[in-house]
């Protein structure tokens, strides 16, 4: 299957990148001891590359799980934007518009459910976390 070949090629490239660039750059060289800091990461990178090669050469026959990539990317983008806004303005201010955007994108148009999601859920979280558990919200 093409999807297996694509996944295999990705693993092959990832393994190669790890072995040749990332591990030498991000792991200190130590010349003593039985298991040096680079030993395990290098072995695993090699194993990843080998698995990738096997997938490229002998792909499976099962089709990939169906996924709506554009919509998933849209949701992921929304969550990342939400995280950036939370780090700047705080959860309590960002959660209601974020919930509204997520529910609207999911096709929800009934005002009662939109109100429950945008006001009820953040209020319940605030009550449980900030008031009952006495922990700070992000």
């Amino acid at each position, binding site marked *: 299957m093409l*999807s*297996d070949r694509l*996944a295999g090629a990705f*693993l092959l490239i990832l393994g190669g990148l*790890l072995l040749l660039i990332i591990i030498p750059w*991000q*792991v*200190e060289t130590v010349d003593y*001891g*039985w*298991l*040096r*800091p*680079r030993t*395990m*990461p290098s072995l*695993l*990178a090699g*194993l*990843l590359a080998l*698995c*990738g090669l*096997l*997938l490229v050469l002998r792909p*499976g026959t*099962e089709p*990939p*799980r169906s*996924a709506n990539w554009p*919509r*998933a990317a*849209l*949701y*992921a983008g929304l*969550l990342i934007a*939400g*995280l950036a806004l*939370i*780090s700047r303005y705080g*959860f309590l201010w960002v*959660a209601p518009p*974020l*919930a509204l955007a*997520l*529910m609207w994108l*999911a*096709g*929800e148009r*009934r005002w009662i*459910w939109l109100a429950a*999601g945008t006001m009820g*859920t953040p209020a319940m*979280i605030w009550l*449980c*976390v900030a008031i009952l*558990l*006495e*922990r700070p*919200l*992000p």
Partner: protein
Amino acid sequence: MLDSATILAGLGDAFQPITLFYVLAGVIVGQFVGAVPGIGPVMATAIAIPFTFGMDPLAGIGFLVGVNKGGLVGGAIPAILMNTPGTPDAAATAMDGYPLAKQGKPLKATKMALYSSVTGDTFSDIVLITVSAPLAILALRMGPVEVLGLMLLAFAVIAALMGASIVKGIAAAALGLMAAMVGTDPEHASPRLFFGQFELYDGLPLAAVAIGMLAISELLSRLSQTRAAVRATVQIPANQPPKDRRVSWAEYWACRFTLFRGAVIGTALGALPGIGSTAAAFMSYASAKQVSKDRASFGKGNLHGIAASEAANSSVMGANMIPMLTLGIPGSVSAALIISAFMIHGVQPGPFLFENQGRLIYGLFGAMIIANAMNMLVGQVGMRVWVRVVTAPESFILTSALLLCFVGVSLAAGGVFGIGVMLAFALLGFVMTTFGFSVVIFIIAFFLGPRFEISLSQSLALLNGDPMALINYPFGLAMIVAAPVLAVWLVRRRA
């Protein structure tokens, strides 16, 4: 190993009002969330872990056990009412539960699922309580070489049995182990793969990785496919005769052999890492059908079909805790999540657990039995209420779950940085799942990674770098040799 005073003190702790309260709360949350199609006990446990942060260890772990057990009962509701299993392991329940509900007996079907689930769960808990302490004594005699062999064996079994193919299974395990390499190297204490982020000195936060890969990636997948509100296809009639609303003692007793067989299958499979409750449920269903004198009625609303499936899938949970408590090796994602809760509360799982935290462990055993009783009580009262849950729109449920994950990870994994890690692993989990790589193998490998590296380092030191010295460790050597042999055998059997 443990004196009776410790055991009694532990069981007494389980009956403290605060523990009872949290176990009850866990069961209610679990049944509620389990009834939502697509959420299920694993995701519910993942979301709930950070909220146990401020609780006493036994109350927190008891709450999670309640969520997990409640989720198994709740998972049967959408399977029976909508033919849409809340969890994959409830798919076998739908085969007879849905036809029975369509015959106008939805409450009878959900109650049979409840009784069977509690029966199977109690059976496996009794096995867990009986065998785990002696197994822990055995485990204490194991050194680093034996632990290394055992982990290799666990990886081999998990990679061979889970996921689409063994190559993908090994790749998922290698990715999980690679993620576990982030942080400080155990032998030289030198930081590695941290990309200048000092928050990563202690490694990637387990709660953020687990919630990202298990919960957020699944929520993303479901949200991206949600277009309309979910509606129950079977409604509960207002006025039903009592025999159609409840399961009589005679009907329950007639299923006793099916229940026992299902519980034994679930417990046996649950004790082995990686097999899981879905396989147990289908195996039990198939065996019940095979021995039945009325095979033709299976798939048309036979109570034995529901009993077989639910007893087996629920008995997996207790048995999953056997390798977790005795060896520190999680047999499933639920067990890995409960282990992470142990670690959040400063408790290190493994063979020393019984020696160092005996009171807590027997408290946990007590909480598990209490959770079973509460599951029964809450289920009796709550079934009619949970049935309404399946009609709540996915857009609301999934969005609320997302917000809970944001807050939960922030509590457990150090604020906004933890949420960032969670989102990164959610994307990885989404891609991995779409391409057929098991995120379950990834999480188990990620969890076992640091221990695997330490055991390997200690083993190399013990062997003085000479592989021939393995001959002095026959048990460890046998497991190291058995790992690839077993993997090949399992793959051939699967093929």
